[in-house]
């Protein structure tokens, strides 16, 4: 947060100081130099940001290649993966029969389940979190129950939800829901409890009523906490969806992996894992970005 503040200060200070004219006077004389410097800076940024992970990736791939290069190795080396799974790597939009779909469609099916379950978890989680944060009684009554329930592993809910819903699709969504909701509840409750007394007093002097207080004070004040919960939640739901789909079947990255295992297509599994990892990474970044956009300005009081 302090970094954001620093950025803000340095970004506005040239405007405040109000004497950029002297600096400008030098600029037009050598525009090419400025552009070269700019390009150099961008290049340096690329190098410092992208080069290290690129190098480590290559090194790891090389180690893997060496370790698995013997014909008796149980796992294929990267070169083998490329050859074996070339089909699914180059044609992610492939359309076949039943569960025989390209990687894009598998991932999309999983993302749709996550989207539904996670959205429900976010709404219910924030609502319950607000209740817990606002009411001592709700806190005392519900918190112990939630603390127990949240330790139940996601997949342990699956048989129960299959029994309740009699169907795989809603069961998978329920598992996502029940996995993602706990961090949202707990963090929202913490955010609401930590609303500074000053803001509450402002609201009281203005006589902001229930909905006004909720929208104008509570949500923005608790937003940083809520987004922490949402971010943990999205990671957990992506963890859970793969496992849940293995069990319920149908199109989806989880069942794809399970299917590949049953058909001994180890290379396909490895390709799927890369997809799962990359998508999970982007989900996390997406929520983080949303959080940054929404809580912009809140960090600095």
């Amino acid at each position, binding site marked *: 947060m302090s970094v954001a503040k620093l950025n803000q200060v340095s970004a506005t200070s040239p405007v405040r100081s109000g004497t950029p004219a002297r600096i400008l006077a030098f600029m037009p004389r050598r525009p090419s130099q400025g552009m070269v410097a700019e390009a150099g800076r961008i290049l340096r940024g690329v190098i410092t940001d992208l080069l290290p992970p690129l190098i480590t990736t290559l090194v790891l791939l090389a180690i893997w290649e060496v370790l698995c290069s013997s014909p008796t190795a149980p796992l294929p080396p990267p070169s083998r993966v490329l050859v074996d799974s070339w089909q699914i790597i180059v044609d992610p939009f492939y359309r076949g029969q039943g569960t025989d779909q390209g990687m894009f469609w598998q991932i999309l099916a999983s993302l749709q389940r996550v989207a539904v379950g996670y959205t429900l978890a976010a709404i219910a989680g924030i609502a319950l979190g607000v209740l817990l944060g606002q009411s001592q009684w709700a806190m005392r009554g519900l918190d112990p129950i939630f603390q127990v329930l949240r330790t139940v592993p996601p997949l342990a809910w699956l048989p129960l939800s299959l029994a309740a819903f009699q169907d795989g699709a809603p069961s998978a969504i329920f598992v996502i829901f029940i996995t993602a909701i706990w961090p949202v509840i707990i963090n929202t409750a913490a955010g609401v409890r930590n609303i500074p007394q000053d803001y509450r007093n*402002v609201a009281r002097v203005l006589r902001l009523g229930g909905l006004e207080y909720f929208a104008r004070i509570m949500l923005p004040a608790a937003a940083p906490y809520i987004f922490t919960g949402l971010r943990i939640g999205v990671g957990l739901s992506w963890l859970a969806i793969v496992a849940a789909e293995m069990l319920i079947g149908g199109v989806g990255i989880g069942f794809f992996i399970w299917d590949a295992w049953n058909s001994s297509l180890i290379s396909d599994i490895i390709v799927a894992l890369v997809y799962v990892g990359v998508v999970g990474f982007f989900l996390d970044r997406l929520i983080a970005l949303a959080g940054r956009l929404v809580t912009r300005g809140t960090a600095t009081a």
Partner: protein
Amino acid sequence: MAQQYLALEFIDKSFERGGSRTEVLSQVSLGVAKGDFISIIGHSGCGKSTLLNIIAGLTPATSGVVFLEGQTVEAPGPDRAVVFQNHSLLPWLTVYENVALAVGKVFRGRKSRAEQHDWILHNLDLVQMVHASDKRPGEISGGMKQRVGIARALAMEPKVLLLDEPFGALDALTRAHLQDAVMEIHARLGNTMIMITHDVDEAVLLSDRIVMMTNGPAARIGEVLDVPIARPRNRIELAGDRTYLKCREAVLKFLYERHRFVEAAE
């Protein structure tokens, strides 16, 4: 007392904490005329903020009543706007939006959108903050935040403006500027103002009367000093003024001779 604009009658306040009971205020009674500028001064921890919060309705008194225009004060409301010690601007709203939140709430149905807009700008102009309308509190200085806090409170058109050490956290120069700004607003609008301070010069410069509180626990009003100095007041001219010096001396005597013992105990 019935004809007083604002009247505190026999206010007691004690806090219960884990079975133990601390008496903070004891038998505080005070009458304030409309348009008066009152300062409350006392050592830190004696219960000044508690008293102000009771007037604001933010804290209930244990016993005793606050009357405003003959009505008892039961709950907080915009007729008793508060300027909080640490400005309490909402950091996710811009300067304009912070004032707009108050104006929108207080004048809903009474002023049109355009009138509200004008009223917001008018109040920001009173504290010379129109130029920073679109800035967020995180982007402006402490003195500017305090100005916006004052604008927000003024914009509610309160019957009584309550200021809790409004300039406590500011440097001397900014503080002097804001004191002048508040004096000017008081002269222009004639608001009733109650200000907490621990700065003797500030109290004498701004006030019609200075309420001096004894040390806690169970703080009382020790003395009420009239400040018979004509307005408008000028801090430089007053520096050698005999009445000013006498008032100043009286407050200092009260604080540092007669009620110093708690400082040693702290």
